[in-house]
């Protein structure tokens, strides 16, 4: 019985295991992004504030958008977009910009997520683009229209561009500082929410050509609504960040630490 020499087999090499091949997107596991998107849809079903003068309702998903950047990093944009598209279809009363309404929550998550990932230049460019797109509309050059983006967008710009403030906010959140965590989360929620509401305002203004006679008188009301959302988001955000750390559940801060 003779034995033949076996043919040399091509060497089989496993594909390199990158973060991408392990089912991650922008540093976060896809499973977590999917869970967040599902949470986002569920939150969109809960009307929080009836909004006189604006389409439908402000729903609890505004809170989810505000805190998403801190929890998911830039991946928040993907999770919010996925959740936003479905939520817009299932619960359309929370989206005043119609089929493109998901862009608003995407931008909110993206700006806050990039800032939290310390990609502040990108976050700053996006925030400026969002604010700039408001002023591209000729309607926005009318009396007092410059006031509309001012309150929380200004805070967002300060947090993004002033290095000591930015570093302090990020460090306080990453270390879960006992005292400074609260104001830091508040400021981060301002960034997330500012991205969302300015994008919404800009889109609504382009679509329905609303003049200063609508925007300026209702501004105090909008500031009140935004403040309530950001304060509640701060409470939720602090609870979630501490809870995730204590339970050793995945969050973007782990990825940053790695």
């Amino acid at each position, binding site marked *: 019985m003779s034995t033949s020499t076996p043919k040399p087999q091509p060497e089989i090499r496993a594909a390199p295991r990158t973060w991408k091949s392990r089912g991650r997107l922008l540093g976060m596991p896809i499973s977590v992004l999917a869970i967040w998107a599902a949470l986002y849809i569920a939150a969109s079903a809960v009307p929080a504030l009836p909004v006189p003068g604006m389409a439908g309702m402000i729903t609890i998903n505004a809170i989810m958008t505000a805190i998403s950047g801190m929890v998911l990093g830039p991946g928040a944009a993907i999770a919010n977009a996925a959740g936003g598209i479905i939520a817009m279809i299932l619960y359309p009363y929370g989206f005043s910009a119609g089929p493109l309404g998901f862009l608003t929550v995407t931008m909110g998550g993206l700006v806050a997520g990039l800032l939290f990932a310390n990609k502040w230049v990108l976050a700053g460019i996006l925030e400026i683009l969002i604010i700039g797109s408001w002023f591209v509309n000729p309607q926005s050059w009318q009396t007092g229209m410059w006031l509309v983006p001012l309150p929380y967008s200004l805070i967002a710009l300060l947090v993004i561009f002033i290095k000591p403030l930015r570093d302090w906010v990020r460090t306080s959140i990453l270390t879960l500082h006992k005292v400074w965590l609260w104001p830091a989360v508040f400021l981060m929620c301002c960034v997330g929410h500012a991205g969302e509401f300015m994008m919404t305002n800009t889109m609504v203004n382009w679509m329905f050509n609303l003049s200063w006679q609508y925007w300026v008188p209702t501004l105090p009301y909008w500031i009140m609504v935004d403040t309530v959302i950001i304060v509640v988001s701060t409470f939720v955000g602090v609870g979630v960040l501490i809870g995730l750390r204590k339970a050793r*559940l995945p969050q973007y801060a782990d990825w940053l630490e790695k």
Partner: protein
Amino acid sequence: MIGISSGARRTPLNGLDGRTKLIALLTIFILALVFSSPYYILGLLALVLTTWAIARLPWKLIKDILKFFLIIAVIILVVQIFFYPGETNLFRLSGPIGFIGFSGYITLEGIMFGIAMVLRLVVIMIVAPLLVLTTPLPEFMLALVKLKVPYRFAFIMTTALSLLPSIQSHSAIIQQAQLCRGITDFETGRLLTKLRTTAGLLVPLILGTFRDSQTLDVAMSSRAFGAPVKRTFLLESHFCPTDYIILILAILFLLGGVALRVLGYGTL
């Protein structure tokens, strides 16, 4: 709440490819934004309503959707009627009120523009459900993937939707637990109290579902999610002749609409 199509009802719209419907939806959406003449937008609305009838969708749904947008519709109408800078004065209400920018006259252009904006709102709000209610979710996702939307994104959407019932049941359990502790402000409390109790609902809900994500992660890894292989799909979609006809019509409508707008039609 609007449900996603189960695909049980067979109408001509259900037979179309998801991509065709997505492109048609985008066309109508863009045209609604391109035109600012009420006549042209009325034409679009007629098209959408005809499609709604062909799809045999319940008319009550339109009413349900629009009731959420009634207030903004009234406000848009009023703002445009009073403040749109028109030239054809219809009647005088008062003298000019400078500090609110009111000329004192109601103009024809103001009324027409107000009506156009309200019609635009209606078209924009009812066109998306038209797509979704006639497209079963798997087909919708397949259409997204075929339109080169990254598979991972489509996967997140599909998974999110399938997890939704479980999250809603989680939420109900947490609410029951809070009720047992004497917190009853979910439904009846004042606004601020309701928002405060929302925090008590959201934090455990987010933490609980994040814990579940670990299981999902293991399941995905064990099935080699993200392995560099060519994906195949259980469902396959192909264009049929009707799809081609609708696609060609949609492109013609879009190009025609943009051309009309460039030539100065479709605007006030």
